[in-house]
């Protein structure tokens, strides 16, 4: 039994994938409607999409916007969150504003932003930036607030300036929590990327997905869903590797952060 479970544990996610595809295959065979292709048909459509130059450029353009939006959000949200965590006044200043912004779907700002900045890269990147910033701010805030006071006092006693204390004590101590926020942000960036392209149909992965839907190319629709899903899983797994490397010293965090979606 022991060797069996040792063999199965690393394979479990793969088995789960295969299981889901089997359920899908069975469901579509059972329903047998023209608009619900089988898993195999969808898988077969994937090489066509990835082989096509136009779609590949579209998908890469999406990923570029996502990367830029995410990078900007990381650069601005982490310092803001850390400041909020260490200063009562800064926290009291920004908290209500963030609470008002939180329940607004960032992609819903797309039609308004499109009026000002056009349908191009700028507005989509801005929407991704807005969507990703909040969880990163929130997690950095939580992380910085939990830093032990004593360490800061010791730092001050050793003659560290306030900005050095921030960089050498607060940032590393809050890093596990910050990286959890970044991981949530990564998945959110992917979601906002798809929705923004769905609303401004001009280029990108979301555009291919919903255009195929409108043109009733259902194989392509389901193949794109698989591609986008795989992007989410791969990006998340890669980031988890990176996170584990960076904060090897801290307690193993939760396998999956709560605030996905």
């Amino acid at each position: 039994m022991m060797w069996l479970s040792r063999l199965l544990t690393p394979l479990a996610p793969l088995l789960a994938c295969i299981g889901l595809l089997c359920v899908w295959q069975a469901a579509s065979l059972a329903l047998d409607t023209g608009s619900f292709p089988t898993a195999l048909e969808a898988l077969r459509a994937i090489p066509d999409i990835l082989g096509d130059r136009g779609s590949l450029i579209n998908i890469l353009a999406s990923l570029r916007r996502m990367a830029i939006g995410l990078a900007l959000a990381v650069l601005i949200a982490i310092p803001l969150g850390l400041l909020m965590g260490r200063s009562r006044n800064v926290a009291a200043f920004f908290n209500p504003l963030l609470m008002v912004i939180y329940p607004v779907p960032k992609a819903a700002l797309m039609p308004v932003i499109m009026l000002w900045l056009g349908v191009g890269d700028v507005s989509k990147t801005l929407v991704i930036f807005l969507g990703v910033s909040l969880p990163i701010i929130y997690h950095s805030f939580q992380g910085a607030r939990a830093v032990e006071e004593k360490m800061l006092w010791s730092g001050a006693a050793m003659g560290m300036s306030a900005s050095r204390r921030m960089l050498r004590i607060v940032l590393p101590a809050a890093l596990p929590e910050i990286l959890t926020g970044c991981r949530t942000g990564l998945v959110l960036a992917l979601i906002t990327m798809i929705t923004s392209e769905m609303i401004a149909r001009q280029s990108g992965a979301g555009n291919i997905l919903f255009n195929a839907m409108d043109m009733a190319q259902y194989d392509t629709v389901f193949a794109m869903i698989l591609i986008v899903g795989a992007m989410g899983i791969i990006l998340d797994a890669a980031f988890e590797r990176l996170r584990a490397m960076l904060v090897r010293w801290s307690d193993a965090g939760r396998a999956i952060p709560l605030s996905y979606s």
Partner: protein
Amino acid sequence: MARRHFPDMLLGLAPILMLIALWQVIVWSGTAPVALLPSPFSVFARFSAQLLRPEFHHEIAATLMRLFAGFAIAVVLGVSIGLAAAVKPVVDAVVKPLVRILAPVPKVALYPALLLTLGFDHASKISLVAADALFPILLATYYGASMVEQKLIWSAMAAGTPRAQIIWKIVLPASLPSILTGCRIGLVISSIVVFLAEMITSTDGLGHMLVQAARTFQTVDMFVPLITISLLGLILNAALHLLRRYLLKGFAEI
């Protein structure tokens, strides 16, 4: 305490008021044409005018109905699957890899598939909301229930609680704080997702209002649904906070 909270509130209102003031100044200065950026006064006037119209109530009701239906399904499924996985190793072995795979998948991308299988009516929107809100609630329940102190369970068993009842009498109440945290995240996500689903395909609801206004370039009307969803989110959040205070009366910290 009350003395300390009052200036905090003023400080918190400042950036919101500053944002609105900045908005007004831009409108006054004339750098942005009114067609692109209406003044905040006209937006709030339209919002309060809309609040009196029954059609607007109908849109809000449609959105809220989908939101609550999806959220309720997510709570029931999330809490029961989470508890089962935390208590039974067999369930855990099946659920964990599935969650690992499905949690990072952007659920909006599934929306076309839901449309094709469930149709353009309520069902597809409600299932999208449920799929999106499910994972935070499930994970929070799972983590909460796995953290329950073994000593509590042993004491209950020593006091004669039947095995079958331990999950209801001990594990569920002990993991309640964590479950409610998950519900709070799930609720915000639900309000975001229901809006997006309505923006993509719908004939009513707040999201549909926004798209309709955008298509006809009624800028003032575009801001109204955005303000509404933000207020709805705040109200729902506050309601859940009160519920949490009521449910967790006996707990040391909230």
